[in-house]
């Protein structure tokens, strides 16, 4: 049998097989099944309809209140209560509502997902955990319900696209810029039904935060999953958190890729994706006259402590432009606490920014910063579809924490270099 890609190895492992090829159908044993306050209520309804009484393993299910948290209205509160009641009934180990945060930042930080795992979640950004050299992908509520009942999920083994970034990154360029660039190159369906495997010296140079950001947006290229190589940075991150054994995989040297893209990361400037597709990526210098009403730093894409440090570094000693609302959202309770202790929260407040409790909130136009018709935001979130952050006639420009913070100061899209 020819060599296997990283995703093929991970799926073969989860399916208990020696090897798999693209196109194979496999049934995988799941390490973790995830849902949130928006998707769990339907999953719970379908779980009951299936005649299931108990979840397959109370320690392998994570239910996280994050989309509408703190509950924005009575209907949302009712949805969260449905999930909370189910978690209590089933004695779910990983139920998070307080001292919690955004699921895709929380689960890795709590050591719930580890290298070699196979994870599904009723949230499209479940692909984030590929940064840990795990297989993880988003599903709907029904698949989540079936998985909560059986502990298994079927997959068609995807072909793999490999993305190699070599060269030294320019100042202010990080994981967000590399993934926006990638999506700009291949399009929002450029990786449809396929795995995205990243590699190259510029990838190994990224800290874990940047790797999570890149895998988070694999779905924005249509990818089934995104996956990063395991190295000493992965090991340091995981060993500080793991409470169980994990398995490390690497791609075979003779693995069969559907296509290999090789780019010089050193030639990439900070990227911004214009409305209304994440693939509308271009260099920040091409968009620098675009005035903004709001800047958001946060979301499962960029709400990590490293992201907040970058934003604070830019806002320190500066003021948010008059008329601009700058909203900073730490990804989890622990990150919020750390940002407070490091003085970042004080820096944000002194600059005139608002600091929210952890929530997905504005990213999906839920609450905590919804846009009116004609308003425009630059955001570190992952989607800029029509109406994503509010009114269908509002606009979202996707960017890194550095560009979002600099833009908050300038009142228009700008590069930190301009400050």
């Amino acid at each position, binding site marked *: 049998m020819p060599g296997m890609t990283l995703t093929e190895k991970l799926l073969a492992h989860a399916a208990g097989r020696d090897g798999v090829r693209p196109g194979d159908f496999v049934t995988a044993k799941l390490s973790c099944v995830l849902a949130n306050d928006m998707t769990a209520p339907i999953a719970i309804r379908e779980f009951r309809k299936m005649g299931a009484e108990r979840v397959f393993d109370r320690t392998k299910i994570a239910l996280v209140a994050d989309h509408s948290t703190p509950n924005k209205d009575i209907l949302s509160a009712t949805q969260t209560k449905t999930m909370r009641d189910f978690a209590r009934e089933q004695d779910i180990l990983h139920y998070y509502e307080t001292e919690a945060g955004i699921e895709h930042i929380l689960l890795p930080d709590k050591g719930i997902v580890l290298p070699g795992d196979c994870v599904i979640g009723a949230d499209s950004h479940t692909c984030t955990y590929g940064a840990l050299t795990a297989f993880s992908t988003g599903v709907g509520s029904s698949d989540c319900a079936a998985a909560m009942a059986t502990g298994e999920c079927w997959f068609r083994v995807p072909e793999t696209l490999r993305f190699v970034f070599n060269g030294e990154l320019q100042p202010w360029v990080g994981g967000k810029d590399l993934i926006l660039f990638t999506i700009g190159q291949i399009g929002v369906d450029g990786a449809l039904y396929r795995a995205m495997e990243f590699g190259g010296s510029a990838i190994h140079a990224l800290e874990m935060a940047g790797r999570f950001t890149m895998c988070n947006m694999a779905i924005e290229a249509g990818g089934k999953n995104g996956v990063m190589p395991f190295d000493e940075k992965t090991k340091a991150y995981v060993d500080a958190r793991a409470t169980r054994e994990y398995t490390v995989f690497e791609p075979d040297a003779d693995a069969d890729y559907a296509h290999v893209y090789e780019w010089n990361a050193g030639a990439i400037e900070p990227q911004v994706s214009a409305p209304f597709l994440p693939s509308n990526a271009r260099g920040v210098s091409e968009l620098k006259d675009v005035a903004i009403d709001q800047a958001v730093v946060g979301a499962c894409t960029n709400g990590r402590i490293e992201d907040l440090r970058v934003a604070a570094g830019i806002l320190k000693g500066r003021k948010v432009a008059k008329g601009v609302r700058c909203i900073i959202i730490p990804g989890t309770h622990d990150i919020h606490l750390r940002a407070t202790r490091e003085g970042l929260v004080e820096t944000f407040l002194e600059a005139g920014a608002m600091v929210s409790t952890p929530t997905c909130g504005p990213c999906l136009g839920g609450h905590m910063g919804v846009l009116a018709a004609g308003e425009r935001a630059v955001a570190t979130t992952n989607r800029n579809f*029509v109406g994503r952050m509010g009114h269908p006639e509002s606009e979202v420009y996707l960017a890194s924490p550095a560009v979002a913070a600099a833009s908050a100061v300038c009142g228009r899209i700008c590069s930190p270099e301009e400050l």
Partner: protein
Amino acid sequence: MAGHVHKYGDHVDTDVIIPARYLNTSDNAELAAHCMEDLDAEFITRVRPGDVIVAGVNFGCGSSREHAPIAIKECGVSCVIAKSFARIFYRNALNIGLPIVECAPLVDETEAGDEVEVDLAAGRARNLTKGTEYSFPPLVGPAAELVAAGGLVALVKARLPAG
């Protein structure tokens, strides 16, 4: 199944199929009342039972929200025909029993308002207005099992040990 066509372009995302501001409920009828609202606000007043949505590539991209295919199914749409589907939407549609078909030639040659008839079992679709006929490959593997079982709930119910 047969119905009149509502036609859309490429990359119809789940945020326009059912905006997140309505996701504070899991009530199917409530979701259906806002189907396609941010792309085509008149859709919900035009749609009739049996109608067909025809669209370009990557239909249903974005969020994993199962609320999207639920809203489409609940407002009476009998089938979505697209050039391609985003993978989570594809799984969700099969799971809940919303028929979906990939058939690029039909999409290219069909206009809004045309009457289209789909025979899933035979793998055949016809544009009755234009008198054209198309074939599409049958589902295989677990996807075929899902449809044969009548959706994921029925499939899992049959497999779980009783009581």
